């Protein structure tokens, strides 16, 4: 039974890590993969999402709607940024990087000035429901009464039993839904077709009557909205501060760069699946810090072997098979 607990714990941790990386990176992957802009203000867009979620929930709005509002808020903020500043820096990777870093600095400090160093933290949904694994329990999902009953005897959980929160699984489900949604958006909608045409050859798309400026703004908006949604989801589990996003930006970049720009969705999934795996294994064996180091080392190795990222490599492989 201990083995089972261990395996389940590992699996759970892996899903948690994957969900975390997907959510942190998905908006960035869209903007980098489709527009070639390095958006260092990604974390701040997530932060905006977190704040929108917080204020919505303070006003009594249920969390799923608050998260949707977070996406809308960050999406609008992103489109404004794109029109005001970012559009001047297309095809200038390094300049876009520097200027968005400046934006991130302004936005986070502005939030600090306006809203203070921290916000009242939000309740984590489903926190009363636990998955219990191991010991005499085996495997069960319990509510607060069941949980209290188990702890009643000794004040602690029985020997060998571990508990896992259910919100982590919800995060994974949302991450999977977002991935599927983006795939469908690019694949089946009018916007998706136009966006892919624009990214492929802007001049040609323009000549075909596509308003490329609007496509760019919309794409940046979609990426920002995804960042905002992610920020809202993370806001339910962590402290909300003006510098909330900074923690995610670096990891998100690693994931996106390893995924590569050739295929936004499959690159992201492959990258997250592999880097998340490395991180989980190393964290389990050593420490969280070593887990992070291991993930970066893995990213570095992957880039050495596949300089265009995993998706570029996959595309190459697929072509070769033809």
């Amino acid at each position, binding site marked *: 039974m201990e083995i089972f607990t261990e395996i389940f714990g590992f699996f759970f941790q892996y899903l948690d890590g994957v969900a975390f990386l997907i959510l942190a990176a998905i908006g960035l992957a869209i903007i980098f993969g489709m527009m070639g802009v390095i958006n260092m203000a990604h974390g701040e867009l997530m932060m905006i999402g977190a704040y929108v979620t917080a204020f919505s929930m303070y006003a009594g709005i249920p969390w799923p709607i608050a998260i949707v509002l977070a996406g809308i808020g960050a999406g609008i903020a992103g489109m404004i940024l794109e029109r005001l500043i970012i559009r001047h820096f297309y095809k200038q990777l390094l300049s876009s990087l520097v200027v968005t870093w400046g934006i991130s600095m302004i936005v986070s400090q502005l939030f600090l000035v306006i809203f203070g160093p921290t916000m009242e933290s939000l309740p984590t949904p489903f926190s009363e429901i636990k998955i219990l694994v191991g010991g005499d329990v085996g495997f069960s999902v319990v509510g607060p009464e069941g949980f209290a009953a188990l702890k009643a005897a000794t004040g602690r959980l029985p020997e060998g039993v571990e508990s896992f929160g259910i919100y982590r699984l919800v995060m994974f489900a949302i991450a999977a839904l977002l991935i599927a949604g983006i795939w469908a958006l690019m694949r089946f909608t009018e916007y998706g077709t136009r966006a892919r045409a624009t990214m492929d050859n802007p001049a040609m798309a323009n000549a075909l009557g596509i308003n490329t400026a609007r496509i760019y703004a919309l794409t940046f908006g979609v990426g920002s909205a995804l960042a905002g949604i992610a920020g809202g989801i993370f806001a339910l589990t962590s402290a909300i501060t003006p510098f909330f996003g900074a923690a995610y930006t670096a990891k998100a970049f690693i994931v996106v760069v390893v995924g590569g720009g050739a295929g936004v969705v499959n690159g992201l999934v492959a990258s997250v699946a592999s880097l998340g795996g490395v991180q989980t294994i190393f964290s389990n064996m050593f420490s969280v810090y070593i887990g992070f180091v291991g993930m970066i080392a893995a990213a570095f190795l992957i880039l050495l072997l596949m300089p265009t990222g995993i998706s570029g490599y996959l*595309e*190459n492989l*697929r*072509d*070769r*098979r*033809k």
Partner: protein
Amino acid sequence: MNSRADTGQPQTVTGDTPIVEIRNVIKDFGGVRATDNLSLAITPGELHCMIGPNGAGKSTFFKLLMGTIRPSSGTIHFNGEDITRLAPFARARRGLGIKFQNMQVYQELTVFQNFFVPMRRHHKPAEMPELVDRILRRIHLTGLEDETVKNLSHGQQQWLSIGMSIALEPKVLLLDEPAAGMGPEETASTAEIIKALNAEGMTIIVIEHDMEFIRSLNSRTSVLHLGALFAQGSYEDIERNEDVHKIYLGKA
């Protein structure tokens, strides 16, 4: 490096030991075969033209020669030495000079400073002004040495790019579309520049779309088609070749 008597050479050799020789080179990009079992030999002192429709693999051929891409299989020899796995800078040091299709000049430097980089390996700075003057005269840029390159016209930048490759004093000069974007007069001057260089003994390989330009060079010509050698011969032979007309001239 000594030349070797080769066995199993491609049929295209004309007697002299080749200075550039590629054997059975295949290059795949994803699913596309850009170069299909290509074998070709260039003799020292030759002026060689390469033509072919879009996507025939001409630029890929130059990139393979220069080493910016590696062949999937096959070998590349330069002056008798196998250079298939050498990095581009190592090939340049052995005497391969190139002007790629897109213009490659240092936009923010002056004309004179542009020459500094290719010349520095062979010459002392004190010798440079005179050498640069001499090259500038060849490429019709006399007196422009202190001009910043981004202020030059398109044609002048093309010439400068050729001039920089000459300044490297290569044994073999590769020119990818040297007359691209030039007017008729500039094109004619470019042909004169190339012929003069060749008359002084420099081996030159030219890729070009413009058939007028190829005609004015009037030299041995290879036709590439679908990554393979389709025909080879003097310019007249090629011009008379019905099959070449079908694949290329007909479309042009």
